[in-house]
């Protein structure tokens, strides 16, 4: 028989994974909107934000209750702290997806131009990072989380490359400045989502191993 506390922890995990699903869906819809220039997907992202915000509130509330009522220790305490931080990161992922949807709406209102940046490829990499980070959380696997940390460099590089070619494009002629700026901001939004996925992976490592690997270190409590 599961204890009430264990039931609470399981419920917290389930709620966070469901929220993770909503955040992944928001990224995919925003990417689909860019790919198809179909404003219907943008609207889905914009209206879907409420569900993510509501999920964030619910998770915070349940985590607070468990902290107050059960006074968890050690791995359980680290788990709840990790959930609270991952919760905030997922909410920010939702915000970034909204930002992308708004930029896509702007792009749709402008004339379509060919820009030498592969946003869908970058979005795929970012989406994979979020997915893997949540997998690591689901199974409590620190080694999967470590793989996510490695992927962040790839996305950073993609964003840097996008910046170089888009700035060059803007310098070449003002005709497509607005579109280039939108795409540049989308690249930056995607790169930020990758940062949130990195944070999630770091929190999973903290939960499972008790090690603080933020900012490129591996700090164990002495």
């Amino acid at each position, binding site marked *: 028989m599961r204890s009430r*506390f264990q039931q609470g922890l399981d419920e917290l995990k389930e709620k966070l994974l469901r929220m993770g699903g909503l955040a992944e869906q928001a990224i995919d819809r925003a990417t689909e909107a860019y790919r198809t220039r179909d404003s219907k997907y943008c609207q889905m992202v914009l209206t879907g934000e409420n569900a993510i915000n509501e999920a964030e509130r619910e998770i915070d509330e349940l985590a607070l209750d468990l902290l107050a009522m059960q006074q968890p*220790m*050690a791995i359980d305490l*680290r788990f709840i702290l990790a959930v609270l931080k991952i919760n905030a990161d997922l909410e920010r992922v939702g915000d970034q997806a909204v930002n992308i949807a708004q930029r896509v709406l702007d792009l749709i209102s402008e004339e379509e131009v060919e820009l030498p940046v592969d946003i869908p490829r970058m979005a795929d990499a970012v989406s994979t990072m979020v997915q893997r980070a949540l997998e690591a959380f689901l199974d409590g696997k620190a080694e999967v989380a470590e793989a996510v940390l490695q992927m962040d460099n790839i996305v950073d590089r993609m964003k840097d490359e996008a910046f170089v070619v888009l700035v060059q494009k803007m310098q070449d002629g003002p005709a497509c400045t607005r579109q280039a700026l939108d795409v540049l901001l989308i690249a930056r939004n995607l790169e930020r989502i990758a940062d949130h996925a990195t944070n999630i992976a770091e929190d999973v490592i903290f939960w499972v191993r008790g090690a603080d690997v933020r900012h490129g270190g591996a700090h164990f*409590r*002495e």
Partner: protein
Amino acid sequence: MGVGIEVRGLKAFYGKNESLHSVDITMPANHVTAVIGPSGCGKSTFVRCLNRMHETIPEAHAEGSVKVGEMDVYGSGSDPVEVRRRIGMVFQKPNPFPTMSIYGNVAAGLKLNGFRNRKQMDELVERSLKLAALWDEVKDDLHKKSGASLSGGQQQRLCIARSLAVEPEVLLMDEPASALDPISTSKIEELIFQLKQHYTVVIVTHNMQQAARVAELTGFFLMGNLIEFDKTEKIFTTPADKRTEDYVTGRFG
């Protein structure tokens, strides 16, 4: 001032049954060390070995070395009475002498130790009651009220004052707040925090939140073995041993 406690190869026996298995631990002066573990793990036995209370149980004895400051607790020529004066003890249930006044309770240990100077005794009683954070509540009733007339929380602070009156260097506390309500518990915990300025404190507790609140160091005992001893925040956030983790997260015990 408090003194450090160094324990080496400490074993405790009830008859032939070894209940504490070669414990090594160093508890620094003027710190609070919490001792935690499930029932029957040997935590109370361990603490009772520190001031030779264990051997007061028929057929019980201890082996190994316990040094409290310069004092060799189990050395040849060591006097159990002197050991217990220098290492005071507070028990789970407050046990004031019911027929004695508040003053009489605090002065009891002094009298037993042959103390006769009335003026100095008054000063020591006042100092002890102040250290135990009870003075303001009882100063007008020192001779009028008996120790037993106080509330549970006050009685426990009275017992702490009684222990402090004989000027020990170490204070052992065996679940000192387990019979008290939350307000009295919080007063005792605050008191423990203050007392470490003057004494080395070792507290046995079943309440892990209490250990986390009052102690800088925590030792986890299981089946007569000291499994892990570390900074309290380490024990309760990232313990090194799986058995400690299972215990502090409530998975057994």
